[in-house]
């Protein structure tokens, strides 16, 4: 039995220890937002937060998350409670087919949770290895840059914008949703 936190809830699974986390999440917990692309840690489609870091879960055995906290795209935000990055994704028409975008968003949100003023190079570093067959990279980068800017200036932070809670750099003192 392996126990961990999934999107804030305590969960346990009885599953072979070497099963990749991705398949546990998709096939056991039926959260289908995280995608399978390569199974080799090469594309980023399967990325989730593990204790706040973005990891490739297709090569991460479920046994290695025991006692840790896992966040998937489903835990990042939803249609009525969008993470600021998701809002920026929509505003910038970032997704095309959308297949890579859950993974992209998990890495982008892990980055901004730790660094609200990432340089271009830091963005590139955090996002590298996320393969987008549709080539949406420029819009993704723009969305990240815009979000960081918006989150940095409290004045222009729209109501409902909140900061990621893990490893908070600054607590959002603004209006809460």
């Amino acid at each position, binding site marked *: 039995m392996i126990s961990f936190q999934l999107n804030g809830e305590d969960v346990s699974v009885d599953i072979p220890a070497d099963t990749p986390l991705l398949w546990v999440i998709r096939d056991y917990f039926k959260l289908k937002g995280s995608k399978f692309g390569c199974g080799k840690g090469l594309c980023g489609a399967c990325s989730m937060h593990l204790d706040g870091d973005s990891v490739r879960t297709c090569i991460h055995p479920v046994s290695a998350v025991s006692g840790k906290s896992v966040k998937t795209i489903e835990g990042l935000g*939803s*249609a009525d409670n*969008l993470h600021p990055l998701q809002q920026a994704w929509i505003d910038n028409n*970032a997704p095309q087919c959308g297949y890579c*975008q859950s993974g992209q968003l998990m890495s982008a949100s892990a980055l901004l949770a730790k660094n609200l003023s990432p340089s271009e190079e830091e963005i590139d570093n955090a996002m590298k290895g996320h393969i987008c067959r549709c080539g949406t990279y420029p819009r993704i980068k723009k969305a990240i840059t815009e979000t960081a800017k918006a989150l940095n200036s409290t004045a222009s932070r729209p109501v409902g914008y909140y900061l990621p809670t893990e490893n908070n750099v600054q607590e959002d003192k603004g209006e809460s949703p």
Partner: protein
Amino acid sequence: MSQLTPSRRNFLKLLGFTGGGLVLGVPLVAGCAASTRDHNSKDKGFTPSSFLQITEDNEIHFYLPQDEMGQGIYTGLTTLVAEELEVNPEQIQVHFAPPHKDFRNLTLEMQLTGGSNSISAWFRPLRQSAANARELIRNAAAQQLNAPVTQLQLQEGQVSWRGKKHPYGDFAALAGTLPVVEDAPIKKNGDFRHIGKSRPRLDGIAKSTGTAVFGIDIDIPNLYRAVVVRSPVHGGIPKQFFRGSLPRFQICA
């Protein structure tokens, strides 16, 4: 590529109604012998082998005949429908059409998405179908409100008459009983409100929240998922392969 020559007479078929309001399809070919559904059955409010449905509680459903694969056709074709139906694209609930003859791409003559032809293939048929639906709503509204047809304004999913706005759904049931309109006027290129304008994609939220459904996300009983095992080294080839160690699958043809 064959020429698109829809017969105007068969251009639009009025499908089953009661309970479901107005249901319209655009099978462009007369009859659907292979149809798995009885299109004319009056007791079916829900007829997935059609393109458009307006329900009495004012839901507008569109069955998208082409596959969304990033090219944006989910937004594109819905925009065509919205334009002629006089609704906002966001008011339309989009569903992926099931496999069915009615949904075949008429220039490719099969239900196939490709060749960059979704917009060109559907540009007129879908607009015509939506325009016909709009006129049926107008005719129904004229009857129901006792108003001259020419004085009704249709905009954003509402019929305006004497300063009052009525949602299309109010007229859906009656519209379903009226004679089919086959060649309602469609807009001239300069008159578009939605076509040709930049807008957020209609599936942007789904694709940014992990809720867009892809083929790999479908679960069916006894489904096995197989993934390719790749060599850990570039150019590596398998040394041995034990077929007997694999589970036996029943393949359905």
